Every structure is written in structure tokens, then in C-alpha cells.
């Protein structure tokens, strides 16, 4: 299905970044990567994979939902949809047609800190992909009718992904509660009222403010040599001129967390209740050395689907939950999130389940984790690194997202060597972030006064 997709890929990347490639020795993984920067500031990264004559080309722009002005939420995502609506050289429909004619897959996604557009084609078609991306980086031409129609599509998307999903609606409220001031509190898809009033002029203004070579990173994964990558980048991207100078991004700094937050949603569409909690933590960008790596290992130790403390204690031992887990989302510019979740077994009340979760968390904070738990978590991450070689375009996704946050591939790969060095003390220290005053707890419940 073609979707101009609003995947919050950082939640996938978090699992991948935190666990997948960040262990074992970087050299042993034999990842051939090359990078260079053009005179106009466009940054290019090549990750070679010669197993099949296919290439994935992704262009990442250093702009996301958190860069929107108040009152124009959803604009970054709307513009992502509109990037497909034509240029003078390739009028509306041509981009899609060319991809179809070349047997290519394509999609795009918007996140809080980045917007990315990718195509996957036979390696020989890379020149055409670069030509198309270079063209629509600067020559977008919109008409009122297609903007109007695409706005309806975006509204349908929100209706399908969010408004029809009680879990997604609760998630929006949790984010709004976790971030009082920082724009991460706004949904990437935008609030309905803001979206309904977005215009063609809004989109073009945002485009001109954020889309320029020096604000972009191109990641190429596949059957391409460094020489070919450089020659093609010189041909298609080097002639582009910057229309503005990108500035460092500043978003309102979230005040230090002070209060325990709780949001509860009763909805007739809910059958099995669930509890989730998000703690505000540092991200890979804002953390002290090894802090984010420690949080990532902690999330595995607490939340692994079979070996984690939550699953073992709540599901297997006490049998008060039917599922339980945790995750660390660290690939964000300004802040990270550590989340936990569980669903109660039939007949168990939410307060009891929550109390047991709090016991588990308190224990980790006061006692830390065991040497075996830490060692097992490191082993699993090491293995995931090798599995990641098989799914190399996913690896390219991590590299691209990291690049938008100013991290080079070497810096990303360095985490592979850092993870095995994380100590028990460092993990216990990281657990201090799991303080209820840093968190919002969300309860998703069936309709009130109805039997479950």
C-alpha cells in the first residue's frame, strides 16, 4: 500500500539502535561505509551491500514536527505528503509513474526531529532517484486543488491512525502531559483544528525555510561503490545552491519534571485494559557518556518479552498480567523516553498491577541488576548486531536518523564498542531516572460501569 507514512520510526529505531548494532566489535561486523560532504553542505553516506543489485536511497531533512510553529501542528507531515505533488520538470503524477516504471518501492515518513523520503530500486536506477530528489528539494510547484485534496487524505490518515484508536488517543494525552513546554508534546500528525486550517502558502513557506542541501543527509545502502556514489552526487546534488543557512535548532527546554502525572481513558472500544508509563530521560544526544547505553540495557533487563523482570514476575510468577514489557526511546534530539506497559490478567484490578510494577522498579533502583542479567542483555545485543547485517537497509535508517542529529556513522558504530563496557553501577545509576515524578502513567480502560 502506498502510504505517505507517518511512522514514528524512532520507536523501531530505538529497539534497533539500543540493541541491534550497538555491541560486538564494529570492525568484526565488517560494515563498509563511506561518507563525504559536498561544497554546498549536503552530506552523503554510503553503506555497501553487494548481495543483491538493489539500492535504497533515502534523503533525510533536519526538520520534523518539533520544528513547527504553535498553531501549525501537522505542517511538517503535510509537506511530506505534498513533496509528491510535482515540479515543473516532473508534474504531478510523474514521480509516482517513474517509480512504477522502474519497479521501485517508495515512501516517506515524518518524525519529531526529521523527515525522510526513500526509494528502493535496481542499483542501475540510482541516477534517476538522485535526479528526482534533487529536483523536488528545490522546485516544488503546488496547485490549490491537489493541496486541498491531499489535506483531506491527511485528515483521513489521522482519523484512521488516531481518532479510531483509543490506545493512540491515550498516547497523545500522555505525550501532552509528559511535555508541558517542549514541542514533543504535540502529535506529529497535528491537532485536528490546526490541520484543517493549513494552506498552500503555509506549506511553501515551511518548505523554503527547511529544505536546502546543507540541511540534508543522503544515505545510500546497497550495490553501489564509493566512486559511483561520489560521481552521482557530484552530478545531481553538487549543483544545488543553498537558499538559506541552516541554524542550530532550539526548542523550548522542558522544565525539570516535578509532578506525578496520570491520564485515564475509558472507551467502549476497549476490551482488555492496559497500563503504560513513560519516564522522561536523556537521549543519546543529551545523555552523559554511557548513560544512554545503560538505559538501553536496562530496558532489555526490565522489559524483554521472555527474560525481562516485568514478564517473569508479573506474568509467570505472580500471574497478575498477561503481557508486560519495556522500551527505551533514545534517538531524539532533546529528550528520551523510557516506557513500560502491562495488561492485567482477568479479575486483577489495575491498582494492584501498578503496585507490583512499582515494587519491581523500586527494586532495580535500590539494588541494581545482577551480573548475569547484564551479561545476558549484552550477549543478545551482540547477536542482534549480526542479524542487523542481514537487514542492512534498516541499519541505514539508524545511520540516517543519527545523521540528522549530528552523529556520524563512526559515532553510531562506536556504541557497538561502548555497550560491553557498561558496568552494574552505571546501570543502577541510570535506573534513578525511573522516578515517578519524571513520568506520566496512562490507563486504558473499558467503558465505566460495564463488566469487563
Amino acid at each position: 500500500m502506498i502510504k505517505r507514512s507517518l511512522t514514528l520510526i524512532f520507536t523501531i529505531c530505538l529497539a534497533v539502535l539500543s540493541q541491534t548494532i550497538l555491541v560486538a566489535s564494529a570492525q568484526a561486523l565488517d560494515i563498509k561505509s563511506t561518507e563525504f560532504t559536498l561544497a554546498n553542505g549536503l552530506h552523503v553516506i554510503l553503506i555497501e551491500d553487494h548481495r543483491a543489485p538493489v539500492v535504497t536511497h533515502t534523503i533525510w531533512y533536519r526538520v520534523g514536527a518539533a520544528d513547527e510553529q504553535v498553531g501549525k501542528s501537522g505542517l511538517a507531515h503535510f509537506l511530506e505528503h505534498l513533496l509528491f505533488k510535482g515540479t515543473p520538470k516532473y508534474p504531478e503524477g510523474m514521480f509516482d509513474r517513474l517509480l512504477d516504471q522502474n519497479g521501485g518501492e517508495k515512501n516517506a515518513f515524518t518524525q519529531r526531529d526529521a523527515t525522510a523520503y526513500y526509494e528502493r530500486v535496481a542499483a542501475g536506477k540510482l541516477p534517476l532517484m538522485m535526479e528526482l530528489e534533487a529536483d523536488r528539494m528545490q522546485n516544488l510547484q503546488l496547485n490549490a486543488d491537489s493541496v486541498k485534496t491531499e489535506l483531506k487524505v491527511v485528515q483521513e490518515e489521522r482519523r484512521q491512525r488516531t481518532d479510531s484508536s483509543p490506545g493512540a488517543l491515550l498516547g497523545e494525552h500522555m505525550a501532552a502531559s509528559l511535555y508541558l513546554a517542549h514541542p514533543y508534546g504535540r502529535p506529529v500528525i497535528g491537532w485536528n483544528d490546526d490541520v484543517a486550517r493549513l494552506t498552500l502558502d503555509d506549506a511553501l513557506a515551511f518548505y523554503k525555510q527547511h529544505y536546502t542541501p546543507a540541511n540534508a543527509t543522503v544515505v545510500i545502502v546497497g550495490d553501489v561503490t564509493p566512486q559511483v556514489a561520489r560521481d552521482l552526487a557530484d552530478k545531481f546534488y553538487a549543483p544545488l545552491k543553498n537558499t538559506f543557512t541552516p541554524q542550530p535548532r532550539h526548542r523550548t527546554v522542558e522544565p525539570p519534571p516535578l509532578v506525578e502525572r496520570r491520564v485515564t481513558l475509558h472507551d467502549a472500544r476497549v476490551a482488555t485494559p492496559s497500563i503504560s508509563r513513560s519516564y522522561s530521560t536523556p537521549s543519546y544526544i543529551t545523555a552523559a557518556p554511557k548513560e544512554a547505553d545503560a538505559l538501553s540495557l536496562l530496558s532489555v533487563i526490565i522489559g524483554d518479552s521472555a527474560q525481562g523482570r516485568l514478564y517473569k514476575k508479573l506474568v509467570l510468577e505472580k500471574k497478575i498480567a498477561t503481557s508486560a514489557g519495556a522500551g527505551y526511546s533514545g534517538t531524539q534530539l532533546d529528550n528520551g523516553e523510557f516506557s513500560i506497559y502491562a495488561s492485567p490478567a482477568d479479575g486483577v484490578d489495575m491498582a494492584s498491577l501498578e503496585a507490583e510494577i512499582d515494587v519491581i522498579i523500586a527494586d532495580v533502583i535500590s539494588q541494581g541488576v545482577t551480573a548475569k542479567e547484564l551479561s545476558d542483555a549484552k550477549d543478545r545485543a551482540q547477536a542482534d548486531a549480526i542479524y542487523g547485517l542481514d537487514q542492512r537497509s534498516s541499519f541505514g535508517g539508524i545511520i540516517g536518523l543519527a545523521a540528522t542529529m549530528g552523529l556520524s556513522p563512526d559515532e553510531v558504530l562506536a556504541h557497538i564498542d561502548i555497550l560491553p563496557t557498561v558496568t552494574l553501577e552505571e546501570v543502577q545509576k541510570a535506573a534513578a531516572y525511573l522516578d515517578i515524578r519524571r513520568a506520566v502513567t496512562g490507563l486504558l480502560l473499558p467503558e465505566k460501569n460495564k463488566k469487563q
Partner: protein
Amino acid sequence: MRLFAAHTFVRQSVFIVVSLVCLAAFPMLAKAIDIQEVTSPGGIKAWLVEAHEIPLVAMNFAFNGGTINDAQGKDGTGNFLTGMMDEGAGDMDGQAFRDLRDKLSISISFSAASENFYGSLYTLSKNRDAAFSLLTKAVTAPRFESEPLDRMRKYYLQQAADLLKDPGTIASLAWTDAAFPNHPYSRRSSGTIDTLGIISADDLRQFHKTVFTRNKLKIAVVGDIDAKTLGLELDRVFGLLPDTPVPDVVPVVDVKTGLALKVIDYDSPQSIVIFGGKGTPPAEKQDYPAYILSEIVGGGASFSRLTQEVREKRGLTYGTSFSLNNFNKAGYSFGYLATANETAAEAIKVTKEVLQEMADKGPTPGEMTLAKTYITGSYAMRFTSNSAIASTLLAQQINDYPINQTNIRNDKVNAVTIEQVRDQAKKLLQADQLNIVVIGKPVGLGK
């Protein structure tokens, strides 16, 4: 113990490898996929692609039975079984099994579809022996002990309760009930609250005994393993299974059509529409004209008529799709659309017009060219990782394609004529034969 007896099966190191090596590259690839058909000393067959650059092995396999083999009144048994496969097997209880699996980062998983029961193994080369050992236990000797049985029963009961409130599921089941009334294809594969309450360990054992046989077992392996070693592993994992055919419990059936409109009231801002009817007969399930027709009408490429008319031109949906499909004993078409309640009527009207237009006139020559170019050009994307290749090769075996399918598939697509597609469209896409189910609060559509 039975498990150790498995090793005596492998008496010789001499074995038969029928190596049908596909060397001719298909048009757009510079490198060929080299597929060997391996036959183990015990006679178990697998398709193997050796790939030694990355030290891992991916194996996907499928037994020739699925949820339609649930016993009467025990809907959900096959699905339940998938959750029991890591809850104790052979000489290991559930915790011991999972501890070893997770310590070595081995991935073993199972899923149950209507007519196939799938398994997959993903392991680093260095843990290969342990991985195949664990898989052998799971495949040949699951334990079904009472504590995990009780725990997983509660898990599946919750899942069933969730599905009862999921509008997409409710609508799909209503469509299936209309299309295949009183037929195994409309059974509740995830189970119901009633059936899940009574499925016993014996029921699971019986399902396992019935479905886990070597008869028509399909296996695809891609990775760091050679044919000889694979042969030995195949015998270890599957050699002790019986060779009895899985019972054929399904009569050939024509999909029932013509349910013009069924509205299910559900409080949601959007309506979900499920629409579908006739498909190609089961004997024609490799029908290339039908496949091209599917792609043109409702596939994933931009030229899909439904995407163009419903999404691109009118902005009525974020996603719509339509395809022609086959069970083993029935063909059917199946389409999906989600839209605001206020626009449901219009979206349905446009959808029917698109299908009828295709039925009346068939595709344009331009569409045929574009569809063929896209379909042949995008084929290579299925072969970009070991796990993707394993998955693709398994699907090809299940669909009874020959081992040189990767070589001939694009030629077969290119050989399809516009008349053939037009004929299929006329036979299959008449709008008045569709069964249409809408769930939500669609404005202007009476019940």
C-alpha cells in the same frame, strides 16, 4: 529417549542432492540466485540458497495443514498451539527452553494460517547446532503442561475479547460468513470465548499429531550452511515425524456472492468497508492475468485504479486495496477501504464504479505496459536479505511453483495479453456480485 533416537536416523554421510542450480539470471539481475533442492538421507526435501557472507542461517517451513484442521467445536486450537511451542518440549520445561533460546539469541517462531502451519528459525552460525536441537524438541515433542496451558489460555481468551471489539475484524468475519456460509473457511481461526475455554492438552496433541507430518512439508533455507550439513539437520528436526497426509477436510466451494450491503453499527469516527466476491477457480491459482488485474485495480503501486480514484483524486481515504486470492479450494476477491462516516456512501459508489468500468472495458494498453514493467522490475526486491529470500522461496513452494520459478516468473508476466486480463475482469469484477460489509456509522446507508 525419542530425541536421541533421531540421531540414529542419519546412518550415512552419503546423501542425495538433486542440485537444480538456477544459473540463468533473470533479466534485471546481474547475479543469479543459486537454488539447490536438497534431499536428506531420510528423504526430506528443502530448497537451499547458500550465503556465507553473513554468519547466520534462516529457515522457513510450512506444514500442509492449518486452522481449518481444528476439530469441530474446538476453533482456535491451531492458533493456541503456536503459543505453546516455547512452553516446554522434550527434556526441557518452558523456562529452560526459553533460557537457552534467548541466551544464544536464537529466534524460533510459529504461526497458524488457514491451510498452512508456519515455522521459522533464525540463528547465528555459531549457535546452529543448539538452534536445530531446540527446534527438534519443539517440533517433535511439545509438552502441553498444565501451568503454561492455563496461562496461555487466559492470554488467548483476552485476545479473543479484544478481537470482538475490533471493527476491522468484525467486518472481515461478517464478510467471510457471507462468502463461505457453513464452510470451514468461515471458522474462527483465533477461537471464540466458548471454544478457547474448552480446548484441552489432548486437543492440542491431536492437532499436532495431525498437522505436523512430513507429507507435503515445505522448507526453504538461506544462509551459512551447506547442502550436506543441511541434510543431516533436516533429518534431525523432521525425520521422526510421520509421513501421513494431513486430512483434506475442505470440499471445493464457490464463494457466495451478491450481499449488496450489510451495515454493522459501531461507534467510531470512520467507517471500514470490506468488499469482495468472485475469484479464480482453485485449479487456476497461478493465474498471471488475474495477478496483473489485481495489481492494476487495487495493488500497492501508484497506478492502482482504486488508489487513484478514491485517494488521489477525491481524498476520500488514506488507504484502499483490492486483490484476487485463493484458498486451496476456493477463489475470492477481497478489498478494504476506510473513510469518514460522512463519505462512506460516496467511497463505496466510486469503488463500485471503478470495478464495473474495469469489468466492462478491461485495462488500457498503457496500464498493461506499466503494470508489467512494475511487476517485473520490483521482483528483485524480494531477494535482498536472507530472511526475505527464505520467505519468498517458501511461498513459491506452497504455491506449487517449480524450482526455477525465479527464472521464468518475469517471462510469464510479460507473456500475458490484454485480452486475457480483460476476460478475467469481465468474469470477476462485476460490481453487483460483490459482498459489501460496512462497519461504523456510515451516513445515508440504511441497515
